[in-house]
Structure formats: structure tokens, C-alpha cells
């Protein structure tokens, strides 16, 4: 009875806390400007299924993709076992589905166990890649401090989780062999793929009482880790396991080369070019604060940019593909996303009026002017994040609100305005090539 009460309290508390934190994140994301991504639902579902569920873009690097797939499928399939843990916890049963599902139960748990072993191996390799092999992509300076700890913590928690599963199943397997399991009064065996040999191998010499304690440690340990993990997500880059789905659903479906149109500018340019427009006509009085051109802070970005920031798991494929980064420039698309998220969380806590802004306090001008708009970062992102649209919006703010840009660009823009070409050539000479010797 007590255990049911404790279990219920812990479960309700965990889901409650998680919901509160996710609502905070939703509120933060909605600080962004509106952008319509409600069109083309069939294409959006397809993109989500392929890119998030099917992990299509991970497979540009097949070895890592397979390791990641092992972790991902173990995570998804283990939720089946979690359902049983939940039902057991609330009702006080032990392995409630064991009898009703029969051999399918053995199959399901065995499947989970095999995947868990693969996930265990993947986790060890991932830890080694980060900490022993020191892969450059996973050890860049923007990861110093918390991001690096975050990454390692996630992997360590995954190891603990897997060890709990095997402690629980292994101990129960040995108990069953001695007629001491709670599933049945007689001796028997589950026949789980891994624990049926792992259990006897590790726990054989222990007493029935010790085994029962171990089995409970595994059960409660697994459950506790799930709840800790769940509530760790809102603070971690690991949130991608949830947000990858909405983020790919709301992907930009246009050609990558298309840069978003600024409607406010279109209105003004149309007015300027309309010969019938009355320049002295009074405009509609409005209390609305005029919108800033481009982006200086997170609230000037779109909600999709902000969802992108929360979906980023800091894998750094964008940065390793970035031509500017590869040639030693300060720009790192991953850092653009991390900065956006950090600033957004700061704004979520303390508001916008803290004298700081995304551009300036987090992202520097030097970074955004190094971008070649080549779309390599957009192409690489396994969850369809678009760092380029943030970079362009920051440039727009600098140029249109502050007239700040590299001096050569001022000249280039003047040329376009004066003579219709980025260089100083007369527009009337445009066809001269046709008369020249070929």
C-alpha cells in the first residue's frame, strides 16, 4: 500500500513538474514573431516521418547513424516496458502482462534487452568519441563548460538506466529459477534473451532476500532515472528527442535559396513606386509599435527560429560543414543556435528589458558577416534547423536599423542603387560585350 502511494506521488510530481517546464518553453517560443507554417500538411507529415522518425539525414554518416539508431530505437521500445512498470506501480502487481501476453511478453522484453545492449555499446562509443578520441566537432570552444557536461551527463544517465533494466530482469530471472519470483509460486524461467544468461552469471551466488532487494533497486532505479531524465530534458540539449518531431513538421518547405520576404518593406516600396500615391496623404493612426527591421533580439526572430534553438542537440554537423568555420573564421552555426537558446532562456526568466540583446551580448557582428549563405548548415542539420535565416535577420537589423556593415558592402549597395550593378559600371554599357571580340 505504501509503495503504491509513494509511486503515485512521485509519478504525479514528475509529470506535473515536466508539464510546467514545457509550458514555460512553449511560452518562450511564442515570444517569436508569427510565421505561417500551417500549409501543405501532407508534405509536412512526410517530412516529419522521414527526417525525425526515420532519421533520414543522420545516414549521411552511416556508422554514427547506426549507433544513434540503436539508442533511439531502444529508447522508443523501452517505453513498452515502462507501461508495465506504470501499471505495476499503480496497482501493486508484479509484471502484470507476463501471464496474459505469454510468449509475446518474452519476445517483447527480449527485444528490449537486445536493443538495450546495442544502446549500451553505442553509449560507450559516444562517451569515448567525446572524451578519449576528442572528436574536433564535439570539443569546440562553444561547448566548454555546461554543454560538455550536459552531453556526458545524458550518456551517463543512459548507462545507469540500462544497468537498472538488467539488474531488474537479471535478478528476477534468478529468483524465478529458485521459485522466489513474484510472478509465480513454482520454479521456472522467463527466457529473456540477455538476462537469462546475464542474471545467473552475475547474481547466482546471492540469497533470495538480496536478489529481491536488487530486483527492487533495478525497478525503482529504472523508474527514478526515467523521471529524472524527463525533468532534465527541459534544461538540456537532449530535448531534441521530443522537439525533433514538431521541428521537422514545421520545416521550411521552400527551396533553400529563397530568403524570406519582408512584407513591411514591400508595402513601402510599392508606395514609392506607385505614381498615383499621394505622398502627403495621412496614414492611418496606429498605436502599434513599429516593427523592427530584422532581428536584434530573440523576440524579433520567428517562433520557428526559437523552436529551432530548443531543438538543437549541439551535434555540430552544421559547424563542421560550414566553410567559414573550416577556414578559421569566428562563425559557428551551432553557436548561433546555442546563443539563441541561451538568450531566450534568459529573456524567459528576466524579460527583454535587461539591457542585453542577442546581437551584441551573444552573437557578434564578426560572426554574422563571415557567412557565405551557402546553406551547408541547413543541409546538414538532422532535424532541419535553419541557422541561416537567423544570420540574415541579424544582418538586416544591422544594415537597415543601424547602417552598420563592412565598408565595401556600403560601396556595393550604392553601386546597385546608382547604376544597377554591384560594381561601378554604367547600366548603358551592359550590352557592350556583344560588340567586343570573342
Amino acid at each position, binding site marked *: 500500500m505504501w509503495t503504491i502511494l509513494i509511486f503515485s506521488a512521485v509519478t504525479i510530481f514528475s509529470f506535473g513538474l515536466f508539464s510546467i517546464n514545457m509550458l514555460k518553453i512553449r511560452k518562450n517560443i511564442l515570444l517569436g514573431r508569427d510565421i505561417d507554417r500551417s500549409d501543405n500538411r501532407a508534405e509536412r507529415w512526410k517530412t516529419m516521418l522521414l527526417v525525425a522518425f526515420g532519421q533520414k539525414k543522420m545516414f549521411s554518416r552511416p556508422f554514427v547513424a547506426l549507433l544513434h539508431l540503436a539508442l533511439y530505437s531502444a529508447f522508443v521500445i523501452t517505453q513498452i516496458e515502462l507501461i508495465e512498470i506504470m501499471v505495476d506501480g499503480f496497482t501493486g502487481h508484479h509484471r502484470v502482462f507476463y501471464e496474459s501476453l505469454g510468449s509475446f511478453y518474452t519476445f517483447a522484453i527480449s527485444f528490449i534487452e537486445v536493443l538495450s545492449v546495442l544502446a549500451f555499446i553505442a553509449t560507450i562509443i559516444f562517451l569515448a568519441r567525446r572524451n578519449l578520441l576528442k572528436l574536433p566537432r564535439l570539443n569546440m570552444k562553444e561547448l566548454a563548460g555546461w554543454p560538455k557536461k550536459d552531453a556526458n551527463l545524458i550518456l551517463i544517465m543512459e548507462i545507469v538506466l540500462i544497468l537498472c533494466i538488467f539488474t531488474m530482469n537479471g535478478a528476477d530471472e534468478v529468483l524465478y529459477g529458485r521459485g522466489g519470483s513474484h510472478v509465480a509460486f513454482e520454479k521456472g524461467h522467463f527466457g529473456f534473451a540477455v538476462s537469462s544468461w546475464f542474471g545467473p552469471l552475475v547474481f547466482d551466488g546471492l540469497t533470495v532476500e538480496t536478489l529481491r532487494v536488487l530486483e527492487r533497486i533495478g525497478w525503482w532505479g529504472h523508474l527514478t532515472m526515467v523521471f529524472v531524465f524527463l525533468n532534465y530534458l527541459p534544461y538540456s540539449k537532449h530535448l531534441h528527442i521530443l522537439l525533433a518531431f514538431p521541428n521537422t513538421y514545421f520545416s521550411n518547405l521552400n*527551396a*533553400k*535559396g*529563397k*530568403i524570406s*520576404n*519582408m512584407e513591411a*518593406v*514591400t508595402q*513601402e*516600396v*510599392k508606395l514609392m*513606386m506607385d505614381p498615383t500615391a499621394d505622398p502627403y496623404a495621412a496614414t492611418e493612426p496606429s498605436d502599434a509599435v513599429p516593427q523592427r*527591421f*530584422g532581428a536584434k533580439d530573440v523576440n524579433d526572430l520567428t517562433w520557428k527560429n526559437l523552436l529551432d534553438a530548443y531543438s538543437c542537440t549541439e551535434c555540430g554537423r552544421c559547424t563542421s*560543414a560550414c*566553410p*567559414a568555420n*573550416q*577556414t*578559421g*573564421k*569566428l562563425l559557428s552555426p551551432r553557436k548561433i543556435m546555442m546563443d539563441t537558446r541561451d538568450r531566450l532562456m534568459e529573456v524567459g526568466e528576466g524579460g527583454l528589458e535587461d539591457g542585453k540583446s542577442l546581437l551584441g551580448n551573444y552573437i557578434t557582428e*564578426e560572426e554574422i*558577416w*563571415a557567412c*557565405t*549563405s*551557402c*546553406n*551547408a548548415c*541547413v*543541409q546538414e542539420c538532422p532535424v532541419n534547423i535553419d541557422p541561416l535565416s537567423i544570420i*540574415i535577420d541579424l*544582418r*538586416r537589423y544591422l*544594415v*537597415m536599423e543601424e547602417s552598420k*556593415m*563592412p565598408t*565595401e*558592402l556600403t*560601396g*556595393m*549597395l550604392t553601386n*546597385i*542603387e546608382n547604376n*544597377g*550593378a*554591384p*560594381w561601378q*559600371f554604367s*547600366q548603358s*554599357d*551592359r*550590352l557592350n*560585350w*556583344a560588340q*567586343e571580340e*570573342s
Partner: protein
Amino acid sequence: MNLNVPTMSEMLAKGETPEILFWVGCAGSFDDRAKKITKALVKILNNCKVNFAVLGAEESCTGDPARRAGNEFTFQMQAMMNIQVLDGYQVKKIVTACPHCFNTLKNEYPELGGNYEVIHHTQLIQDLINTGKLSLEGNQTFNGKKITFHDPCYLGRANDVYEAPRALIERLDAELVEMKRCKTNGLCCGAGGAQMFKEAEKGNKEINLERTEDAIETAANIIATGCPFCNTMMTDGVKNFNKENEIVVMDVAELIANAAEL
């Protein structure tokens, strides 16, 4: 050989409408190297008797570098003025040898009211060959040569055109060799996003040199591109490594014009 380059206004005066507008672009009009690409394409169009015209002095920058430099006003002013000219001539179809013009005309003008069918010159040439209007039968100009294709970002990743230029190179009596980074993984030449018009930010290497190294690694004799800016960047890269006697940088249109002995 004299080039036949009718303008839209001449055509209009004669009461004719061309099938397709050739959008030359700023580089193609003014840059000495890029002008050769423009002429190569015109030779192909003339040879195949394509009914085309150019805007000539009525053409103006599409606004691509202005938009990417963050100046939306300049971009939209350029776009609206160009759309007025294009619509005035009732243009339906446009070909261009510049992927930046291609991308802007194709993807960014519709939202401002300019709707045209826009193709890259490699797509047009491929069509001319497929329909039998241009023959490369028995061409031996590039016999024994290795050619590698550098994907322009605004053609490849930005618009998913990877096959047309390659299909053309495969028609030549030469071997197409790929760089380790190609197609979706292709590395930028360093010119896009208005970088062409400014010094690079502080770093430890120029992007075009990083890319030229990829090309040199393939041991190709020719680096083919489909973009006047990539052409400039790769040509500079080759010069930097003192390889200008071993490697030439050519546009796909030039390769085809040479092979067809135009």
C-alpha cells in the same frame, strides 16, 4: 564569328516575341572572364537557332547581393523595377548563366509579383542536346582530360540542380571525376552571401583555397563550374597554387561550345 544578340526592345519594334529571355546578369555583362561565358552561351543559342533576346541596357541587378547583405529595401526596389520591365515585355521564360540570378528570379520574385519559368543555362543546353538541336557526336576536344565539377551553392543546395551540369560533362570525350565533397556536400567557393564584394573575415585560410585543394586532389585538368563567381574564386585559387598551366577553370557552357566547335 559574329554574335547575334537581339534585345527585347528591338524584337518588340519588329513585333516579335522571343521564346526565352537570356538574363545575362552583372558578372556576365561586365566581368571580363564572365563575358566569355556569356559569349559561349550565345554561340550555342545562335547555333541552335534559339529564339531568344536580352534586355541589354534595360537589365539591372536582381538584388541578390543586396538582400544577402541585409538591405531588403535595395533588394525589393531592384526586384520591383525588374519585374516591371519583365512584365512590360510579357516575359514568360528566362535562362541565365548565373545561379544567383537564377535563384532570385525563380524563388524570390514570385512573392513580389514576378512569375516566370526560370532555368539555368546547363538545363537549357541539356534540353537542346536531348531534343537533337545540338550535337556533340564524335567530339574529341577534351579527349583524355579529367574534368571535375564544382557545385555552385545557389544551383545545388539552394535549388537541387545537381544532374544537368554533370549530364553535359558526361557527353564530352572526357572523364568526370568527383571531388570528395560534392553535390549536397559540396563546399562553397567563398563568394556567396555578398562575400564576393568584401574582404573575408579574419581566419586562417581563404575558402576558395580550401575548395581549390579539393579540386587539385582529383588530379583534374579542368575545373568546371556553372557560376561566374565560383569561376572567379576557383581561378584565383588555381593561380594561388601556381597551377594555371595544369588546371583551367571553365564554365560548362564553354566546355560545350568548345566541344561543338562553335
